[in-house]
């Protein structure tokens, strides 16, 4: 499996040095993703294979050791699932940039994906971590500064580069600390930095010098925290980098790249320390720290997003908010799992399922939202929400998929975002006796989810509903057809159907996660695999074995649809006639553009109350006019 995988890497970068056609890139992405997906399937069904070692340089402990266990498999699956739609989407989206040469775009795009595949499957904590990280960062850097229409791109790209280098350095120092303190290693020096051998030394190290381990873990938290947009680091680079990049890249950045940070945190805090050493490992306190950081992150990120007027910048801030949910879930898991009480640690496992599920969900719906924003940008050449309106009439497919994504991220029942948040919340509230803090953190998260809803009602409402703005009317008159082509529609539809599928059948991803955890027994992974807190079967939804919490979306959907049909029938009983008319504007229909209710007007009172949290909207630079290609 891994041989195919490495083979794919090579063909990739080769094939795309040619400046011709995104199709080659798309084909390579599809081929490699399919290889990766079959590999993932094999890992999930038959269990993980043996680690593959190649490229050894004995003296400095340089060895590429790839090992795909269950946890890596889940993340690989996510990357592959998002990479295919993004690549297809790129083909049409990048046609604007013909003159700048796709020769630069596609290879970087592929290197970026390759690096992420590598990063989640290497077991080497020093050299190859560094190499993959740099591949990812540099490719990301060029991709962010690629878009010639965006004047702020250089600044954004530089910030990204600097923050990523800091993150890289910090995590590597952490790894070095652990390895040095581990003393003369019993394994061959070649595997000095290997994850497994570091993990092997850790129990004695925890007894001998807990200070060093604590420092190293703190460094890991900072390093991967920067990557995943944790407060306060996320606010520095993320809101600039995401909007500056071309949309398919933003989708990859937000949907997938920050997940490598999540992966790193999960590995370091749950997989690194062997379960037998948990007496010396204060996982409970680490959990509390991560929970608090997560709570702050989700609140600040989402509230700051509320005041944004630019579509992609709004999405970028909400990415920070959603990363906060993931951190919160991870924190809850770590707080509870170390407990001696089996019932409590089972709740920790439930929280972990919720977290990993939310990670997958966020990858899907946030990349979908970025693709939607990209389609709107493609059709209207603006990111400014104040200038948009009424696009649902012109872009029905984009509108419906954006509605599905908005419902998912806002946690509306029957969509996938609800199912995963539900998992985190129920576990955290039930875990109250073990940590008194959790209900309050959950309540902050529930408040934030109301804010998220507000955010995406505004996002969806002002772009697709509201009233046709002057800009949209002009564009529509000039182009006759605003909806994007099928190459951009298909990826959106595909991602939206994943949202609906996972929302209606949450048992499906839950069972995938269970298979994954069974194939990943190391550290606390062992405990995660041993307990199975959310028994679920096909249509039956998810819930605890004692039925204290339960969620059956299929049944609920059935009731809701039945009621919907009834109300529809009732509405037709009176036999009233339908007629369409212009909305009544108190006689000021001529000034319709002047008295439109704009995005910046929404939620003014709430925004005033939370101004101290920061995140003032940037004045929007006027984009350079797009060369019209239609």
């Amino acid at each position, binding site marked *: 499996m891994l041989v195919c995988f490495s083979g794919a890497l090579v063909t990739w970068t080769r094939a795309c040095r040619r400046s011709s056609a995104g199709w080659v890139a798309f084909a390579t992405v599809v081929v490699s993703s399919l290889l990766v997906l079959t590999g993932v399937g094999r890992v999930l069904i038959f269990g993980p294979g043996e680690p593959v070692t190649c490229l050894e340089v004995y003296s400095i402990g340089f060895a590429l050791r790839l090992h795909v266990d269950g946890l890596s498999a889940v993340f690989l699956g996510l990357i592959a699932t998002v990479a295919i739609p993004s690549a297809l989407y790129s083909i049409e989206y990048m046609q604007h940039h013909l003159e700048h040469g796709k020769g630069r775009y596609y290879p970087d795009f592929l290197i970026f994906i390759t690096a992420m595949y590598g990063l989640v499957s290497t077991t080497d904590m020093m050299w190859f971590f560094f190499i993959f990280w740099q591949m990812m960062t540099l490719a990301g850097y060029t991709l962010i500064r690629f878009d010639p229409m965006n004047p702020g791109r250089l600044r954004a790209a530089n910030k990204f580069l600097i923050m990523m280098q800091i993150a890289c350095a910090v995590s590597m120092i952490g790894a070095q600390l652990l390895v040095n303190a581990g003393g003369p290693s019993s394994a061959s020096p070649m595997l000095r930095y290997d994850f497994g051998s570091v993990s092997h030394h850790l129990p004695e190290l925890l007894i001998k010098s807990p200070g060093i381990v604590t420092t190293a873990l703190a460094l890991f938290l900072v390093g991967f925290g920067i990557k995943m947009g944790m407060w306060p680091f996320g606010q520095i680079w993320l809101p600039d980098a995401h909007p500056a990049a071309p949309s398919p890249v933003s989708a990859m950045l937000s949907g997938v790249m920050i997940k490598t940070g999540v992966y790193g945190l999960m590995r370091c805090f749950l997989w690194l320390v062997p379960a037998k050493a948990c007496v010396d490992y204060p996982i409970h306190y680490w959990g509390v720290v991560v929970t608090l950081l997560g709570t702050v992150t989700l609140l600040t990120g989402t509230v700051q997003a509320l005041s944004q007027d630019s579509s992609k910048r709004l999405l970028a801030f909400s990415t920070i908010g959603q990363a906060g949910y993931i951190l919160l879930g991870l924190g809850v898991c770590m707080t509870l799992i170390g407990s001696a009480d089996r019932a409590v640690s089972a709740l920790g496992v439930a929280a972990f399922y919720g977290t990993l599920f939310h990670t997958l969900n966020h990858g899907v719906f946030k990349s979908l939202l970025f693709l939607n924003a990209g389609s709107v940008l493609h059709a209207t050449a603006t990111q400014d929400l104040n200038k948009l309106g009424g696009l649902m*009439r012109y872009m029905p497919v984009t509108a419906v998929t954006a509605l599905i994504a908005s419902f998912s991220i806002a946690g509306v029942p029957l969509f996938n975002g609800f199912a995963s948040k539900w998992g985190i919340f129920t576990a955290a509230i039930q875990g109250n006796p073990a940590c008194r803090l959790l209900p*309050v953190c959950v309540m902050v998260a529930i408040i934030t989810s109301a804010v998220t809803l507000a955010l995406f009602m505004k996002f969806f409402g002002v772009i697709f509903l509201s009233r046709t703005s002057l800009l949209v009317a002009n564009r529509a008159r000039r182009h006759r057809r605003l909806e994007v082509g099928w190459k951009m529609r298909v990826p959106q539809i595909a991602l939206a159907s994943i949202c609906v599928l996972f929302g209606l059948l949450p048992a499906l991803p839950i069972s995938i996660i269970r298979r994954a955890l069974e194939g990943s027994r190391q550290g606390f992974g062992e405990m995660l695999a041993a307990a199975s807190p959310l028994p679920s079967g096909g249509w039956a939804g998810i819930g605890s074995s004692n039925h204290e919490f339960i*969620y059956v979306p299929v049944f609920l959907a059935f009731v809701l649809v039945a009621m919907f049909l009834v109300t529809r029938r009732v509405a037709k009983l009176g036999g009233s006639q339908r007629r*369409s*008319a212009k909305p009544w504007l108190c006689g000021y229909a001529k000034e319709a553009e002047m008295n439109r209710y704009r995005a910046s007007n929404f939620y003014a009172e709430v925004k005033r109350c939370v101004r101290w949290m920061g995140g003032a909207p940037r004045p929007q630079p006027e984009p350079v006019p797009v060369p019209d290609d239609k």
Partner: protein
Amino acid sequence: MKTLLSILGGLANVAIVLLVAPFFQGVLRKITALIQSRQGPPIWQPYFDLLKLLGKEDIESGESPLMQRFAVYLSLATVLTVACLVPMGFTAPMNAAGDVILLIYLLTLCGICTLLAGLAAGSTYSLLGASREMMTMIALEPLFAVAIVVGAVHTQSFRLDTVLNGSVYASAAFPWSGVIMFGVMLLSFQAFVQRVPFDISEAETEIMEGPLMEYSGPKLALFKYAQMAKLVIYSALFVTLFVPWGTGLMFPLGWLVFWAKVTGLVLLVTLVAATHARYRIDQAIRYFAALLAVALVALVLASYGY
């Protein structure tokens, strides 16, 4: 058998809510009129209003009529689905379909439909109303969630029938948190059922019914129906959460006691609505923020077992 029973129970709940909701509205209007020294419409008037609206012309003003229709149908459908989850004198019928967290988010979905309808209508007033509605929802959803979570923390369960049964008082020590939440919910109850002084998002005299401004005919009828049903459902929720006493009696008695309590609550709502003036949105938000702070204190107390 069990599934059949739950489906029948759900249908019964839906039927009760649909039948009773206009009646309560009629009572509300009559009593308001009496307080203001008017004669007021007959109690059955809301039924006739709804029937008449169903036959009136249906004018669609927005950019996307499909969205408008979708939002309207979904609005009443969600309210009726919630009716299946809430105990109305008996235990909750659809216990096996979801828990209280689902209930919290389903109630939000009711609000979302109004929002979508307002956004789709395309009038500036509707958008203004939708924005206000959302701002109140940001403050109100957490308040209700705190009340539910306090119950869930006390009982260590999320089951509908366990939590929606006076669970806020189920702590070992004196239930300070429950008492505080009772006060908080009572003080914010007008906002949940969208009556004066917190009907800011509709504010007929100011922004002309906000989100509903452009709706007419059957669409307006469905919205009004949903709003009336919300009054019944929220009252039932309040009663089951905070005033559980007497519901456990024998069949006809307990049932009657339950509906007597709901009627009492509706009367209270009417009284407050008829004697107060509307708040501005910024005043209301400050008021809710203060209540939310108190509610969080209650939650902390609950997590320590009080």
